[in-house]
Structures are given as C-alpha cells and as structure tokens.
C-alpha cells in the first residue's frame, strides 16, 4: 500500500495547490491587480486543454497499434493556429466585440439571435461531450488501478466506481467554486484559467520526463531507440492517405468547434494580440507533447521493460515496473491534470450554454415575462449554471458506469470530434458568407447530426438495443444502401472517416441550398453585417471621443435611414469640403448638417439622440441604434406614401421650434459669457489699481515690498493683456473672418518652435519626442498650428502634477490624418471635467498658473478652421490631447 498511500498524499497536495492557485488568481483579478493574469503565455497554456487524458495515455495506445497516425490529431490544430491571421483572428474578434458566451451563442446570434439554433447546438454539444467526460474519468480510475496492481503489498483494487464517484464530486466542487463565482454572464474565469495553465505545465513536464526516462534511462539513447522502432511492429509507416489527410482535417475542425476549446480560445480571451504568441508557442507545445509518444510506445511494447498489457497505460507502467515510483507519481499527476482540466472547462462551457439557452428561456416563459428585476435574473442564471454543472458531470459519471470502461479510448475521442465538427459549416459560413441564413444553418446541422448519429454514434454502443446488429449488417429496413457504416457505395471505408465524409457533405450541402433559397429576416441581415464585416467595424462605443471612428458609425447609421446612395453622397461631399476623401471628421458643422438631414426622416428627437449617442459615446450601443434605424427605415417605407404631406408640415413646424430653442440657448450662453468676461477683466484690474495707489506714496513701504507690489502690477497687467489678446483671437476665429495663411513647413520645426517657446527656461520639464516620425511636410497655417502646440505644451507644463513631469509627443498617421498626441504623466483630467475643458474660461483645479482659460477653446477653434480637430483622449492615465490634421495638408513628393 506504500505506493498507493504516497500517491494519495501527493494527489491531495496537488489538488490543494490547484485550489490555492485558482483562489489567488481570482482574488487578484477581482482586486484589479495582476496584469500577469492576462499574459499571452497563460492564454497559450490554456489552449492546451486540447490535450486531454486521451493525449496523455491514449496517444501511446494509438501509436502502439497504428504508428504515426496519432500525429494527425495535433497537426490539424497546428495548421489552424499558424494561420491565425486568416483563420482565428476574425473568430476571436467577433466573439469579443459581440460578447459571445459560447459557440451556441455565436451561431445563434449570427443567424438572427435564434433560440432554436441555440438549443440545437447546445444539445448536440452535450451529447457529443458527455462520453468524452466519461473517458477522462475512466483514465483516472484506470491509472489508479495500475498503481494498485504494481503495489504487490496491497490488498487488491480499490473499488473503481467509488474512486470515480469521488473524483467526479471533487470536480463538481472545483468547477462550481471557480466557474460560477461572478454574477455577470461574461466574467472571465481567471482562477480556472490559471489552474488550467498550471496543469498544462505539469502535463508537459510529466510526459517529457517519462519520455526522457524511456529513451535514455531504459533504451539507452536515441540511436537504440530508433533501432527499436525499426524492429517493432510499427516499423513501417502504413497510414492510408485518406486517413492521414482526413484525420488532420477533422482535428483542425474540432480544434475550433469543441465547446471547451471555444471557451478558452474565444470567450476567455483577453486580447486578440495573444494569438500572436499562441501561433508559435502552441504548436511548440503540441510538438513537445507528441515527441516521445512513439518511443514510449515502442519501448513499452518490448516485454523486457515489463510494460504491461495495456498500451494506453505505458506512461505509467514503464516507470512503475522499473522501480521509478517518484516518476510514476509525477506521470500520474500529469494524467490527472489532463483529465481534470478538460472536465472543468467542458463543464463550464456546457453549463453556460444550458443555462443561457435552455433554462433561461424556459424560466422566462414560465414566469410569463412579468417585470423581473435584474437581480433576480442573475441569481437564476447562477443557480441554473451550478445545477447544470452538477447534472452534466453526473451524466458523465453515469456514462462511465454504464459503458463498463471497455471501449478503446481513441474511438470515443474521434466520435466526439466528428460530432462537434458539424458546427463548422454554420460557423465558417456565418463568419465569411453574408448569404448564410438561419434556415440553412438549421437544415445543415440537422442533416449532419442525423448522419453522425446514424453512422457513428449509435453503432458505437455496440450491438445493443439502441442499434441492433441486424441494422448494422443489412441496413435500415434491410436496404443495403442504408447500412450505417457503408452508406450507398462506400463499402469498406473505415467508420470514422466514412461518417465524417457523409455527415459533413450533407451538412454543407443542406446549409448552402437552404441559405440560398431562403430570405433572411432584418435582424439576421443586421447580424450578418456585424459578423462578416467585424474586421472593419468599430467596437461597441463608449470609449471614444471624436475621431473618424464615429464618422464611420454615423455613415453606417445614416445609410440605414437615408439609403446607401444618399448617405454616401452626403458624406463624401462633406469630406471633400474638409479636404478628405470618403469620411469627414465629425466637426460641429458637419454634425449639424447631418442632424438636419436625418431629422427629416426620423424626427429631430431621434436624429439628435442618434448623433449625440455616437459622438458622445454614451451607453447605447451602435447595434441598438442601428436596430432602431433599421426598424425606422422599414416603417418609413410602408407609411411614407400615406403621410408625406403631414410629415412636411410637421417637419417645418419642428424645425422652427428647434431654431427657436437654439436661439434661446444662444442668448443665454451669450449673457453668461459676457458676465464671465467681465469678471475675468475686472479681477486683474482690481489688483493693478490697488497696488498702483499704494505705490503712489512709497515712503512708508520697505524696498522689498515695493518691488513685490511693482511686480504684481506687472504680472496682472500682462495677464490682462493676454486675456484681451485671446478674446480678440477667439472672436476673430469664431466670426469666420479669420484669414488662413497657408505656407509650407516641416512638422519637426513647428514642434521645435513650440517647445523652445514654452520650455526655454530650462526647468527640468522633460519632453520626449521621436524625430523619425516628425519628418512630415505640411501645407497649412503654420503659425496657428504652432499656437496650438504651444498651448498644449504649456498646459502640460503648468498642470501636470507628477513628481517629475514628463511630456511625450507622439506622431502617427492614421488613414489620411496626421495625429500628434501630447501625453503627460500626470493624473489626467477627471471624468466630470472632460466635457468642460474646451469651454471658455473653465480651469480645472484651483491653480491659476497665469492662464486666462481660453487657450483650449482657441486651440480647438483653430484646429476646426484647419480642417482637423483637437480632442481629449479619456482612456489613458495621464492627460492626452490629440491634434488631428488631414494629410492633404501634407505635401506630396
């Protein structure tokens, strides 16, 4: 019992470690610390749950009988991920921007948010994954049994059923604890991902260790290992081309469609940039894991090393039978890791699907859709998830009990793969083909699933009541052509490939035919645009202020209201006026014009709301607005003919009211402005007058005081003058009589001038520039531009509150615009003040710092005159202002 006891101890310690790691990771994430949690390496390691106990044990078994064929299971994913730019990038981006929670969610969302599809996919996923879970439980119990056997002093095998039960129970606890902590539907499961990453490392190390032991410890080196392979039963490569290619293709599809893979690859993804690292790190991982499989298999087959009867367990039995108990325990932990990580993630993925797409709709229907508070809904989701985890894992345990543990591990894995591969046509079509629609998806999935069940899943139960042997041999209703494993003329094909070929062919066929024949609903059309064009659409707004991103949103929305031609015409004209090409910057002028045009179609309130939502970036997503716009467009079509007359009348009245409102607002603004100016002018004058009077009789004043007072007078006079200058400037600019003096100059020189003007006092204010990027020639009003730069740099100098204030000036080109960012390392501008900073006379904080408060207002006005913009970027820690200028202002050549 010694070994078994040691095993139990190490196992419990390891499990405790996993719990700790998960707990710490979760807590760190919740506190908002720990950037390391979203490192690309963690992401790559989490992808390794593709390698389950099937890899750890079954691959060796597979290799022992079929040679190198097992490699196809890993070549497929390798090919997919090295082409990530083409294959996976869109999937991950679509998943993140649409906040997709599962593969069922993705497919259902794409095809018009169809719940029927979601249910279908969920059920298929559950059916396909349950045997796989049973497989993992089986491997754990078998591996424990192997230890017990080797332990001669032991008194027999512990009851396998009980072990499996306790393992399942432990998995339920872990998964519920760390997989259903958060109330938000989309919260990332940091704890689970960390634990999975740790298990990935343990898996790899264990397998490599056993491999190294086998090659160098047992066989005596690489050469003798190679010789052994040549003498073994698998010395010749006897893989059929069909299977080599077919299995690679199958594993490639499964890599994307397996619910657990979708969960870690898309749902838990923090940043699509992580794919960059995964694209080489993951294939490397796969390669290392498969490196020693054949050597271990061959060495295990050699009776000298006492590998035992079951090739699936060579990874354990080789160290055990050769006295390396420590190594065997490590190997056990590796196998344990691979089994448990798969089960945990699969349980999370499946329970998410079940709770979101089956439980929730039923519950909502049952409660009659009555007013539900948000809190209730979340609680129900949580409870539904936890119960689903329990049920799914229990089903897995049941399957394990009933299957008797006889089926070879490899077979179940491949059956599961073909099952989930049925999602592929709808998925790929959904992402790349706008023509794919819901009917097609349902038809394809139904056909594929039916064929999969008939040809592969049901026959796998063996000659049983589910599918009688007679049907297998003589076909359904005794029709030879309908034999499940030899449909039509395909006699003699290996069952997995056979089922794969037929199910996918009919799946694709039905999907294409029904998609072409049908018509999508408006919601489907909206969604298909969202998904297929995801690489070129902006994210859900709420982060941006200003910038051409909003013009794109505005265009898309306007197209839906006004029609494609009209909208584009308006935008292109506006853009040409501004000196651009397709998209105008969202200047106040343009926005006003656009609002006017739109209100003609949807009414002023909606037009105003639409534009301000997009430009200000408040909570409503563009999708919602577009949905409104779409609906509105439809309503317009139907009723336009009937109500043209009344509409025009209404429109005129509305516009008159609008103008009236605007005038009232303007006059109020003017009053406020005048009284503000009055205050700003009189305050310095007060000091000047007071001190001048004091200094008229300088006799009883000390020389120091005299100097001080005199300098105060000087200061305030300067301040007054500056204020008057700025006021004049502003009024000149605003009255559009400003003369724009075009001349040519280089950006770097302009920046030099600005920097030297502001920081010539050499006071330790650090400015970082990148001269390489500043070699841009401009044709614009250079003096005004320098004025803007001076304003921004001096603001940074005055208001940056960092201990060592630094300013970084970054230059970039972004699609026809030159962007110069001025970012300092201070504490930024608080959210409430962000709208105010460009207003006249607003000053953040108490510090006067010698400014009149008009600087930013003027700078913004200047940039608008020059056809560009000046915006504050709210997403950084410090203060960042972005000056944009159209690159038409750049001289060609």
């Amino acid at each position, binding site marked *: 019992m010694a070994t078994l006891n040691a095993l139990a101890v190490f196992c419990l310690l390891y499990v405790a470690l996993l719990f700790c790691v998960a707990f710490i990771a979760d807590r760190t994430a919740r506190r908002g610390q720990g950037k390391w949690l979203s490192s690309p390496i963690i992401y790559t390691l989490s992808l390794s749950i593709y390698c389950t106990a099937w890899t750890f044990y079954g691959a060796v078994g597979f290799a022992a009988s079929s*040679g*190198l064929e097992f*490699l196809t299971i890993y*070549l497929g994913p*390798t*090919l*997919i*991920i*090295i*082409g*990530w*730019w*083409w*294959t996976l*990038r869109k999937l*991950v*981006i679509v998943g993140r921007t649409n906040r997709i929670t599962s593969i069922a969610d993705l497919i259902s969302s794409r095809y018009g948010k169809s719940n029927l599809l979601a249910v279908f996919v969920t059920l298929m996923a559950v059916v396909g994954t349950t045997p796989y879970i049973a497989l993992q439980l089986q491997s754990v119990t078998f591996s424990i049994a192997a230890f017990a056997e080797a332990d001669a002093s032991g008194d027999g095998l512990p009851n396998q059923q009980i072990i499996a039960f306790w393992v399942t129970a432990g998995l339920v606890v872990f998964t519920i604890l760390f997989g259903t902590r958060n109330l938000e539907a989309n919260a990332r499961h940091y704890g689970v991902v960390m634990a999975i990453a740790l298990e990935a490392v343990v898996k790899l190390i264990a397998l490599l260790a056993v491999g190294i032991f086998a090659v160098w410890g047992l066989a005596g080196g690489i050469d003798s290992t*190679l010789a052994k*392979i*040549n003498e073994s039963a*698998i*010395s*010749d*490569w*006897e893989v059929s*081309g069909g299977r*080599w*290619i077919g299995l*690679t293709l199958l594993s490639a599809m499964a890599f994307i469609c397996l619910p657990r893979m979708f969960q870690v690859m898309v749902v838990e993804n923090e*940043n*699509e*940039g992580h*794919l*960059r690292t995964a*694209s*080489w790190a993951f*294939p*490397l991982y796969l*390669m290392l894991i498969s*490196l020693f499989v*054949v050597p271990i298999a061959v060495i295990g087959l050699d009776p000298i090393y006492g590998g035992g009867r079951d090739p699936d367990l060579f990874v354990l039995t080789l160290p055990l039978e050769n006295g390396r108990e420590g190594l065997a325990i490590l190997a056990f932990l590796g196998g344990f890791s691979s089994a448990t990580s798969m089960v945990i993630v699969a349980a999370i993925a499946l329970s998410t699907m079940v709770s979101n797409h089956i439980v929730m709709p039923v519950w909502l229907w049952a409660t009659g859709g009555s007013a539900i508070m948000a809190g209730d809904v979340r609680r129900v989701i949580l409870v539904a998830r936890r119960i689903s985890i329990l049920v799914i894992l229990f089903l897995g345990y049941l399957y394990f009990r009933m299957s008797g543990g006889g089926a070879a591990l490899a077979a179940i894995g491949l059956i599961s793969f073909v099952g989930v591969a049925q999602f592929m046509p709808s998925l790929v079509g959904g992402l790349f083909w706008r023509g794919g629609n819901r009917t097609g998806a349902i038809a394809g999935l139904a056909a594929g699933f039916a064929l999969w069940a008939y040809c592969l899943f049901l026959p796998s139960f063996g000659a049983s009541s589910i599918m009688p042997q007679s049907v297998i041999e003589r076909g359904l209703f005794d029709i030879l052509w309908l034999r499940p494993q030899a449909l039509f003329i395909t006699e003699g094909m290996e069952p997995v490939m056979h089922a794969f070929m037929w199910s996918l062919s009919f799946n694709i066929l039905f999907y294409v035919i029904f998609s072409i024949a049908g018509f999508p609903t408006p919601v489907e059309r909206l969604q298909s645009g969202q998904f297929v064009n995801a*690489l*070129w*659409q*902006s*994210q859900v707004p709420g982060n941006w202020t200003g910038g*051409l*991103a909003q013009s*794109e949103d505005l265009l898309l929305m306007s197209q839906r209201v006004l029609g494609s031609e009209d909208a*584009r015409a308006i935008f292109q004209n506006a853009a040409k006026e501004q000196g651009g090409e*397709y*998209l105008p910057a969202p200047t106040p002028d343009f926005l006003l014009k656009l609002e006017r045009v739109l209100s003609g179609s949807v009414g002023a309130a909606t037009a105003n709301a639409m534009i301000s939502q997009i430009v200000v970036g408040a909570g409503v997503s563009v999708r919602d607005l577009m949905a409104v716009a779409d609906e509105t467009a439809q309503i317009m079509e139907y009723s336009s003919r009937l109500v043209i007359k009344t509409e025009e009348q209404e429109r005129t009245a509305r516009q008159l009211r609008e103008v009236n409102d605007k005038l009232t607002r303007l006059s109020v603004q003017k009053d406020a402005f005048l009284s503000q100016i009055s205050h700003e002018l009189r305050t310095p004058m007060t000091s000047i007058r007071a001190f001048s009077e004091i200094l008229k009789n300088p006799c009883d004043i000390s020389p120091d005081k005299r100097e001080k007072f005199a300098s105060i007078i000087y200061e305030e006079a300067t301040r007054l003058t500056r204020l008057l200058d700025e006021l004049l400037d502003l009024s000149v600019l605003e009255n559009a009589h400003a003369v724009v003096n075009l001349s040519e100059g280089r950006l770097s020189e302009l920046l030099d001038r600005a920097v030297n003007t502001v920081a010539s006092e050499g006071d330790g204010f650090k400015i970082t520039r990148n001269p390489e990027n500043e*070699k841009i*020639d401009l044709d614009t009003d250079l003096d005004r531009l320098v004025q803007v730069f001076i304003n921004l740099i001096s603001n940074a100098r005055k208001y940056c509150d960092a201990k060592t204030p630094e300013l970084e000036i970054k230059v970039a*080109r*972004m*699609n*026809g615009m030159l962007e110069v960012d001025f970012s300092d390392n201070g504490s930024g501008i608080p959210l409430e003040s962000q709208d105010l900073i460009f207003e006249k006379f607003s000053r953040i904080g108490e510090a006067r710092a010698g400014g009149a408060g008009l600087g930013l207002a003027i700078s913004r006005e200047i940039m608008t005159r020059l056809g560009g913009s000046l915006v504050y970027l709210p997403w950084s820690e410090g203060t960042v202002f972005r000056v944009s200028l159209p690159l038409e202002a750049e*001289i060609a*050549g």
Partner: protein
Amino acid sequence: MSDKEDNSISDRRAYRRRRMADASRLMPLFGAALFGMPLLWGGETVPTTKVMVYVFAVWIALVVLSGLISRSLPDPSEERQRNQFRL
C-alpha cells in the same frame, strides 16, 4: 531629397506588413503541403523513423517561421482600428 527617402521608407514598411499578412495566410497551406509529403513517398514501404524525423523537423520549422511572421504582423486590435475606413 531626403523627403523622398523618408516617404519610401514608410511605404516600404507598409508594404512589408502587407506581405507578412499574405505570408501568414499562406502558412497553413504551406504546412499542410509539407505534412502531406510523406504520402508521396510510398513507393516501397517507408520506415516509421524516417517519417517521424521528417514530421518533427517540419514541425519545428513551422514553429520558428510562425514566430518570425507573427512578430512582424501588427497588433490585431490596432489593425482593426486602422481598417475601419475600408467601406
């Protein structure tokens, strides 16, 4: 004169980026072709060891290639922003 040089440098950089994206798109096909090569060797029976060494060599090469190409590809989220105006 120096302006022309600068312009062409940044042009070259953009060009290289696009070619890198093309290369990345071709990688799976290239990899598939390489992995499929052993199928063409089946004149007489092929020894397992030979195929094994070949496959793993190709694998390592693909890992290295993929790393190099991915390094020179832009960050996908930046790329998405940049692509926003392709109407």
